[in-house]
C-alpha cells in the first residue's frame, strides 16, 4: 500500500476523530487538557510519524531522488489527477512539520479549553493542507492544498486568537487568498500554453515542466507563482499580514504559521519557481536577491523597535526569510542548501520562541515586554531556554541558523559582494533585537509586582532539550541534512515514473 495518500489523509481523519471524541465526552468537570481529544491527536501524530519513518527508511525498488510516487485519477477530463511524489526536500519539510506539531501538542498552552475538539480538528486539517502542499505534484492538487491549509488557519486565528484577532485573521486571509488566485491564473496559463502546444490537457508537474515557453511568457508565469509564494514567505512589500497574524494567533497556530506555513512559500519557490522556470528565475534573481536583502534589513530593523514579544519574533522571522529568499535565488546549489538549512533551523528556533512567548503570556497575561521583566529570577528554566533560542536566532555559530546564513551569504557573495555585505549587516541588527528581548524579559531587574509563577516542568524541559540538541546538531553537523534534503532535479524526475513499469 502506498504511504503517500495515508500521509495526507491521516491527519484530517484523526482530526475528525478528535472532534468526535470531544463530542462524545464533552469536557469533564476538571478542565484537563489531556482529554480523549488530545490523546486522539497524539495518536494521529504518532501514526503519521510511523508512516513517515517508513517512507524515510524503507527504500523502494527505485533508489532515485524521488522516494515514492502515487497517482490516482481525479478529474480525468481536465487531466487532473491525485499525484503525490516525495523527495528529500519534501521529506525533510514534513519531518519538520511533524516535530513542530508534537511540540505544539505537548507544549502549547491550553487556550483551547473551549471547543478543544474543533481546535484539534482545525489544527490537524491545517497539517493535512501543509503536508499535501509538500507532496502534490499536480498543479491543481497543489493549488487545492494551498487553499486548504488557509481556511482552518483562518478559523483558528479568528476564533482562538488574541484581542485583535478578527482583523488579523482577515488580513491573513485576504493576502494569502488574493495571491493564491494569481497563482491559479499562472497555473491555468501554463496548462493552456501546454495544451495549445501539444494538445494534451494536463496539470502534471513533470509534463508541464517540459512546456516550451517564450521568455516573456515564462517570466510572467514565474511571477504569478512568485507572488503567491512571496506573500507566504513573506517578502517585504507583501509581508504586512504576517506580524498581525503571528501576534494574534493562538500559540499553536503561531508555531504552525511561523514554523511550517512560511516554509511552504520557500518550498514552492524552490519547486515551482526555480525548478519549473529556471531561465526566468535566473533572470529574475537579482531582483529577488535584492528583495531578500531588503527583507533581512527591514525585518531586523522593525524587530528592533517592537514592544510586543510575539511581534518582535514575527519581524525576526521576516528577516530570516529574507535569507531564504536570497539563498533560493542565489543561483547555486550552495545557496539553495543554505536556504533549506535556514528553513529547518528557523522552523525549530522560531517555533520554540513562539512557544516560550506563549508560555510567558500564559503566566504573565501580557506580551508587552515593558511589563515583563526579570523572569530569570523566578523561571530560570524558561529563561534559559528563551536565551538559547534568542541566541540561535541572532545567528550564533554552532547553531542551525548560522550554517544557513553563512551558506546563503557565500552564495550571494559570488553574485554580488555588496549585496552580501549589506545582508551581513543584518546580523548586527539581529543581535540588537535578540539581545534587546533577552535583556527586557529574562535578564532584567525583576519587577516589584512579580508574582511567583510556575516554571517549565521537567517534562516540558525534556522536550525543549530535544529541540535544543537538534538545533546544535543542525549547527555542527548539518551535512546529513544538507545531502538528504536536496531537491530532486527535474531531469531525473521523469525517469522513475511507474506508469511504464509494472507495479
Amino acid at each position, binding site marked *: 500500500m502506498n504511504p503517500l495518500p495515508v500521509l495526507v489523509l491521516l491527519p484530517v481523519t484523526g482530526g475528525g476523530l478528535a472532534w468526535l471524541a470531544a463530542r462524545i465526552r464533552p469536557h469533564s468537570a476538571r478542565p484537563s487538557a489531556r482529554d480523549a481529544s488530545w490523546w486522539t491527536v497524539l495518536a494521529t501524530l504518532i501514526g503519521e510519524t510511523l508512516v513517515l519513518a517508513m517512507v524515510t527508511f524503507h527504500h523502494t525498488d527505485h533508489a532515485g531522488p524521488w522516494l515514492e510516487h502515487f497517482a490516482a485519477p481525479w478529474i480525468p477530463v481536465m487531466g487532473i489527477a491525485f499525484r503525490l511524489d516525495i523527495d528529500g526536500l519534501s521529506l525533510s519539510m514534513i519531518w519538520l512539520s511533524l516535530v513542530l506539531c508534537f511540540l505544539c501538542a505537548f507544549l502549547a498552552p491550553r487556550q483551547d479549553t473551549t471547543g478543544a475538539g474543533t481546535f484539534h480538528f482545525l489544527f490537524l486539517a491545517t497539517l493535512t493542507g501543509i503536508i499535501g502542499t509538500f507532496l502534490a505534484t499536480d498543479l491543481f492538487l497543489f493549488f487545492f492544498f494551498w487553499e486548504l491549509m488557509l481556511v482552518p488557519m483562518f478559523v483558528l486565528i479568528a476564533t482562538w486568537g488574541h484581542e485583535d484577532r478578527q482583523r488579523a485573521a482577515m488580513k491573513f486571509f485576504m493576502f494569502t487568498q488574493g495571491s493564491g488566485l494569481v497563482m491559479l491564473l499562472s497555473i491555468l496559463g501554463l496548462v493552456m500554453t501546454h495544451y495549445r502546444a501539444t494538445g494534451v490537457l494536463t496539470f502534471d508537474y513533470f509534463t508541464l515542466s517540459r512546456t516550451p515557453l517564450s521568455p516573456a511568457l515564462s517570466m510572467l508565469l514565474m511571477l504569478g507563482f512568485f507572488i503567491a509564494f512571496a506573500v507566504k514567505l513573506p517578502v517585504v512589500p507583501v509581508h*504586512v499580514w504576517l506580524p498581525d497574524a503571528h501576534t494574534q494567533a493562538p500559540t499553536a497556530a503561531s508555531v504552525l504559521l511561523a514554523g511550517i506555513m512560511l516554509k511552504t512559500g520557500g518550498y514552492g519557490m524552490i519547486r515551482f519557481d526555480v525548478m519549473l522556470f529556471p531561465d526566468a528565475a535566473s533572470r529574475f534573481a537579482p531582483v529577488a536577491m535584492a528583495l531578500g536583502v531588503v527583507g533581512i534589513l527591514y525585518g531586523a*530593523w*522593525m524587530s*528592533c*523597535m517592537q514592544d510586543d514579544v510575539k511581534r518582535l519574533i514575527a519581524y525576526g522571522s521576516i528577516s530570516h526569510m529574507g535569507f531564504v529568499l536570497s539563498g533560493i535565488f542565489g543561483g*547555486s*546549489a*550552495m545557496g539553495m*542548501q543554505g536556504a533549506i538549512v535556514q528553513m529547518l533551523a528557523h522552523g525549530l528556533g522560531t517555533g520554540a520562541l513562539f512557544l516560550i512567548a506563549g508560555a510567558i503570556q500564559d503566566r504573565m497575561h501580557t506580551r508587552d515586554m515593558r511589563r515583563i521583566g*526579570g523572569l*530569570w529570577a523566578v523561571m*530560570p528554566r524558561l529563561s*534559559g531556554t528563551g536565551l538559547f533560542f534568542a*541566541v540561535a536566532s541572532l545567528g*550564533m*555559530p*554552532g547553531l542551525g541558523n*548560522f*550554517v544557513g546564513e*553563512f*551558506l546563503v*551569504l*557565500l552564495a550571494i*557573495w*559570488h553574485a554580488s*559582494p555588496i549585496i*552580501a*555585505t549589506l545582508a*551581513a*549587516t543584518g*546580523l*548586527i*541588527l539581529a*543581535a*540588537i533585537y535578540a*539581545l*534587546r528581548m533577552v*535583556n527586557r524579559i529574562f*535578564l*532584567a*531587574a*525583576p519587577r516589584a509586582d512579580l508574582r511567583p509563577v510556575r516554571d517549565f516542568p521537567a517534562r516540558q524541559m525534556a522536550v525543549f532539550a530535544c529541540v535544543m540538541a537538534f538545533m546544535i546538531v543542525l549547527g*555542527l*553537523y*548539518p*551535512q546529513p541534512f*544538507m545531502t538528504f534534503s536536496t531537491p530532486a532535479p527535474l531531469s531525473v524526475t521523469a525517469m522513475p515514473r511507474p506508469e511504464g513499469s509494472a507495479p
Partner: protein
Amino acid sequence: MAATFCGGRNMGEILLPLLVLCPLAASLIAFACAGRVGAGGIGAIACAGVGISAVLGVVVSAILLRGPATGALQVMLWPWMRVAGFSADIAFMLDRISMLMILVVTIVGLLIHVYAAGYMRDDPGIARFFGCMTLFVAAMLVLVLSPDLLCLFGGGGGVGLCSYLLIGFWYDDPANTAAARKAFYMTRMGDVALLCAMLLLAGATGSLRIGTVLAAVANGQVSPTGVNMAAFFILVGALAKSAQIPFQAWLPDAMAGPTPTSALIHAATMVTAGVYLIARLHGLFAMAVPVMALMAVLGALTLLMGACVALAQSDLKRILAWSTISQLGYMFLALGCGAWQAALFHLMTHAFFKALLFLSAGAVIMRARHEQDIFRLGGLRHAMPGLTAAFVTGASALAGLPLVTAGFYSKEMILSGVWRAHFDLTHGWGAGGHPLWGIGLLGAFLTALYIFRCIFIVFCGKADTVATGRTSRLMSIPLGCLCVLSVCGGMIEMPAPLPRPHLFSAFIDPASLLPHVDEPFWPVLAGAAAPLAGVWAAWVVWGRSASVMRDMPGRPMRLLAWLAQHAIPGRAIMGTGRMTQATSTLIFRARTGFLDMLGVWAGRSAGWAGRLLERLHDGRMRRYAAWIAGGLCAGLALAVLS
C-alpha cells in the same frame, strides 16, 4: 623516534578534543546543577573542568614538543559543510602558536577559576556564573585550536556570547546589561567585518582552512586588492575584539561584570583573540603592507590614548581596563610592524600580570567594602600587606621595570621590533618605525606613571580606609602563582642585542633570525629607563605629597577620557541605535498610516459600490419583476434590431 612520535601523535589526537570537551562538560553540569549543588560543589566542578583541561594542555604540549619544530597535531572530527565550491570541517589543530595560547588560556583560566571559587562563594547566581566561565574557556579553546577560519569564527561567537552573559551577570542594574549589550554589539560589528573577509577568502579559494588560505594568498590566487580588502576586514574584526581605536569604548564599560570575569575575559583571554587572529594570519598580512601600516598606527595611537585616559581615571578597575587597552595597543603595534612573535610574547606576559592586577584589585575592593574610587582608598599597605605585594608585583610587570619583571622583556621585544620595522608603502616611498618607537617609549613612561600613581594613592599615605575580613586561601594561592609567573615569565627571552637565552623566539618561530646582534644598544637602555622615569615621576607627584597633587592630570586628560569613552564611537553607536529606533518608529507609523488609509479607502469605496448595488435588490418583488421585464425587453430589442 618516528614511531614514538606517531604513538604520541595518536594520543594527542584523542586528547585534543577532550581538552575542549572538559570545560564544556563542566559548563553543562554547572548549568544543570543550578540550585541543586552548593556553591563549593559548583566551584569544584568548574575548577576540575578547567584543571583537567590545563593538565591535558600540558600533556599535548609535551607531545607536540617531541615532534619536529614545524609539526602540528591535527584532528579532523567531522565535516561541517560540504557543498559545491566550499567545504569546511570541524577540526582541531595544535601548532606552536596555539600551544602557547592553550597554555595561557587553561593555566591562567584555572587560576582565575580557583580565585573565583572563593570570590563568588556567596553569590546566589554562582551556577550561572561558573557555567558561563567554563563555557567561555571552552569557546576560547575552540578559537585558538581551530585550523579553519569558520571554526575560529564559531569560537569567537561563543566567546562573545559568554562575555555578554558575564558582563551583564548582575542584571539587576540596567547599566550592567547595557554595558553587556554594548560589548556584544561592538564585537559583533567586528564579527561581521570578519565574516565579510571570510566570504571574500572563501569565494576566492573555496576553503577557509588557514593553511589553504595562506597558500592561496602566497600563490597569488587572490588578487592584491582582494588581499588588502581581506586583511582590512580581518583587522576591523580584530580591532573590535581587542577594543582598539575606534572600538575602544566597550572595554571600560565591561568592567561592570564580577572581577574574575574582568580578569578572565577582558585581560587575559578574550581581548587577545584579535591579536591571536592576526598573528595566526601573519602570512596574509605580510602581503598587505598598507593594512599593516594602518594597524601599527592605530596600535600606537591606542596605546598612547589608553595610557593617557588611564591617567585621568579614578576608578581602580577602569584604570586597569584602560591599561589593558593600552597594552593591547602595544601588541597591535608589534603586529603592525611584523613582529608577531613579540606580540604573542607580550600577550603571554600580559595575561599573567594583568590577571594578577585584576585579581588583587578585586580582592582589595572586596575587602574595602566595594569601594572602587582610588581617592577614597588610602594607606592600604598596612591593612593588607600581602595584597599590596601582589598588586605591586603586577604593577611593576605592567610598567616593565627592568630585569626583574616579565613585562620588561616582552615590551623590550616589541620595542626592538618596532625599531627595526620599515613600511614599504609604495615603490620608493616608505616609512620607518622610529616615530612609532618613540610613541612606544612615551607609552612605557606613561604606563609606569599611571599605574604607580594608582599604587601611591591606594596603598601609601595615611590609612583612611577600614579593611574588613581577610583574603581566603582560595583567593591568595592563585595570586601567589600569578606573582611568580609575572616575575619569571619573561626571563626566557632576553632583549635582542643581548646574548642568550632567546627561548621564546626559538620556540615560536624557529625560522627567524635572532639575535640581531648588530643593533645599537641604546634603544634597550632607553626602554629600560622610561619606566623608571615614570615611577620616579609618579613618586614625585603623588607619593611624596599625596594630599596636594591628587588630581594632577586635570582638564585635558579628562577631556580625552571623556572623548575616548563617549565620542568615538560609543556615543555614535548608541546614537545610531537610537536613531535607528526613531526612524523605524517613524517608518512604522508612516507605513501603518498609509496602509490604514488604503484599507479605509478600500473599505469606503466598497461600501459605496455595495450600496449602489444594493438598490438593485431591495427585496421588492415588483422591482425584480420590472428588472426582469426590462432586461427581457432590452434583450429582445437587441436581438431584433441587430
